[in-house]
């Protein structure tokens, strides 16, 4: 069973049996509609049971499903036309980041996003969807071009993280990520980001600063991938499922934290089960949010964006008395008192 997860297998078995019975009905002319109806009810209840209680790790796996629609798939489904533009005008073309001008219900917009491959060959050409510094430079070039021509920027995000490679480091990916974050923060045109699959750390945020940040139901977005988190915590990447839970990386978590403005539902099982439907929901949300942003002046747009991001953070504020008390306790615990003498 290709592309089927372990936890889906009982359901897929059942679905196959229903298909067999239907085929048998047609072939032998025997009415099995009662049996089929019973099985279909069973399948429906199983479907709800399986997909209502997906763990964060199961969602990560769905987000990485090899048939999950890619950035170019969504571009083809959402926009009327797409004219792809290439190159960073400095070093080289990076096929791991795509971008260009598209028509959204006839309106020109700039679209950017990392692009994963379908085949091994395409994945090698696209570096498994992991941009080099040139990809971020290309994205910045296209975003600035959008600003010049006053068209909105739509960023479709599906990237596991920055690329841990020698050349990416040599060509300053840290600098490009910082510059891209700054560039996007400063854009005077509306920006809408949609996390469609994986939203991994700085690689995602570099193209993820938006007036609106939307997220597909089974996408994940985190400061670190579950595998790397598990590696740091337990030196064991096989415990990624536990790490995924700790990181609170699901769309529902991020909506609760106020990082994501809207969660776009996926069909049961994931976006690959019905790409057209997901794309239609994405398009509806993008158009709706854009029309709300269209009413804002450039100044209003920028101050709303900056207020939204300025507020993000979770910390506590202590009183002066508390600080003094805690510091006294600490100083006492250390208790040397003398400048020159100290014993542990």
């Amino acid at each position, binding site marked *: 069973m290709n592309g089927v997860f372990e936890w889906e297998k009982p359901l897929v078995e059942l679905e196959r049996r229903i298909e067999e019975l239907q085929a048998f009905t047609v072939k032998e002319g025997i009415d099995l509609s009662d049996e089929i109806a019973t099985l279909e009810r069973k399948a429906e209840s199983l479907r709800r049971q399986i997909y209502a209680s997906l763990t964060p790790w199961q969602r990560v796996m769905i987000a990485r499903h090899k048939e999950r629609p890619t950035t170019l798939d969504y571009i083809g489904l959402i926009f009327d036309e797409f004219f792809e533009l290439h190159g960073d005008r400095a070093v080289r073309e990076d096929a791991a980041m795509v971008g260009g001008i598209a028509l959204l219900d006839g309106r020109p917009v700039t679209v950017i996003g990392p692009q994963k491959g379908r085949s091994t060959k395409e994945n090698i050409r696209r570096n498994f969807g992991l941009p080099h510094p040139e990809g971020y430079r290309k994205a910045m070039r296209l975003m600035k071009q959008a600003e010049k021509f006053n068209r909105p920027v739509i960023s479709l995000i599906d990237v596991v993280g*920055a*690329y*841990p*490679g*020698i050349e*990416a*480091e*040599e060509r*300053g*990916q*840290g*600098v490009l*990520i*910082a*510059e891209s*974050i*700054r560039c996007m*923060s*400063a854009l005077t045109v509306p920006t809408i980001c949609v996390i469609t699959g994986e939203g991994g*750390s*700085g690689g995602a*945020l570099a193209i993820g600063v938006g007036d609106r940040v939307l997220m597909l139901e089974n996408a994940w*977005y*985190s*400061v*670190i991938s579950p595998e*790397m*988190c598990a590696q*740091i*915590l337990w030196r064991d990447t096989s415990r990624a499922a536990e790490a995924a839970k*700790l*990181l*609170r990386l699901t769309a529902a*978590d*991020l909506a609760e*934290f106020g*990082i994501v403005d809207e969660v776009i539902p996926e069909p049961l099982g994931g976006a690959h089960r019905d790409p057209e439907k997901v794309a239609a929901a994405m398009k509806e949300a993008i158009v709706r949010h854009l029309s709300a942003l269209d009413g804002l002046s450039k100044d209003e747009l920028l101050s709303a964006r900056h207020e939204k*991001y*300025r507020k*993000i*953070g*979770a*910390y*506590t*504020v*202590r*009183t*002066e008395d508390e*600080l003094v008390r805690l510091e*006294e306790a*600490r100083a006492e615990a*250390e208790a*040397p*008192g003398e*400048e*020159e*003498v*100290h*014993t*542990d």
Partner: protein
Amino acid sequence: MSKFRDIFRGRPKYVTVRSQSEEGQGSRRELPDGLWTKCEGCGTPIYHKDLAKNLFVCEKCGFHHQIGARDRIAQIVDDMDAFEEFDRELWPANPLQFPDYEKKTQADREKTGLSDAIMTGKGTVGGYPAVLIAFDFFFRGGSMGSVVGEKVTRAFERATEQRLPVIAFPASGGARMQEGIFSLMQMQKTAWAVETHSRAGLLYISVLTDPTLAGVYGSFAALGDIIIAEPKATVGFAGPSVITETIRRPIPPDLQSAETVFANGFIDRIVPRTELKAALTQLLRYHAPVHSQRV
């Protein structure tokens, strides 16, 4: 002068020497004054007071030992007693309810005397008023969570209001994993704070110290008008072990050394710690006309 700072006055001064802990973050070994310590670079035993006098740089081999935020600022400002610390009431929360996170920050608080991995404030450097931002690698590997991001942001905001230059000394493994998405977002917050300060025509000098990595390098640290690095500091985005695992072959040992990053064109100048204050003063002097001169 606050009571808080007075408490620190009587503390013994420590040499702080890095050792890699399980999380790849530094832990501080505290060695009392009057003892000998071994240079991490060449192994030569050095009388601690001599090491401190030379700003924790080995006189024999030039190895730059890591120093805490407070030591860093004390080395740069003209008068530590006149240093006005910002926002020390901000303490970390645990927004993801990450296991053991409070315990770890509490332990690091006791170790460093800081509420989180950073100290910010205002002082004078060679007579020029400036806002200073110093990371403390001994607190959670200098990682940037909400408190660190907020303090960096506020430091830039105050500098913008008061028309002051900013000098930042990152020393960080990157974002604070335990604060998840909240730490990631600090990259945007700090990068935008730099941009606002920059648009006011004010100077920002970023001094990359060992190590400056990942989410800290990929945000405010890489955005200085002038970028200086200490010799041999590790500077990069992806961690060396992650690169090795991904490409499945060993990486050049100096791939992320400040000298290589300088040669690749991403650093203006490498300045030894013993010459750092003079270099910073020189740069502040060139930019003095654009900044406010009141202290």
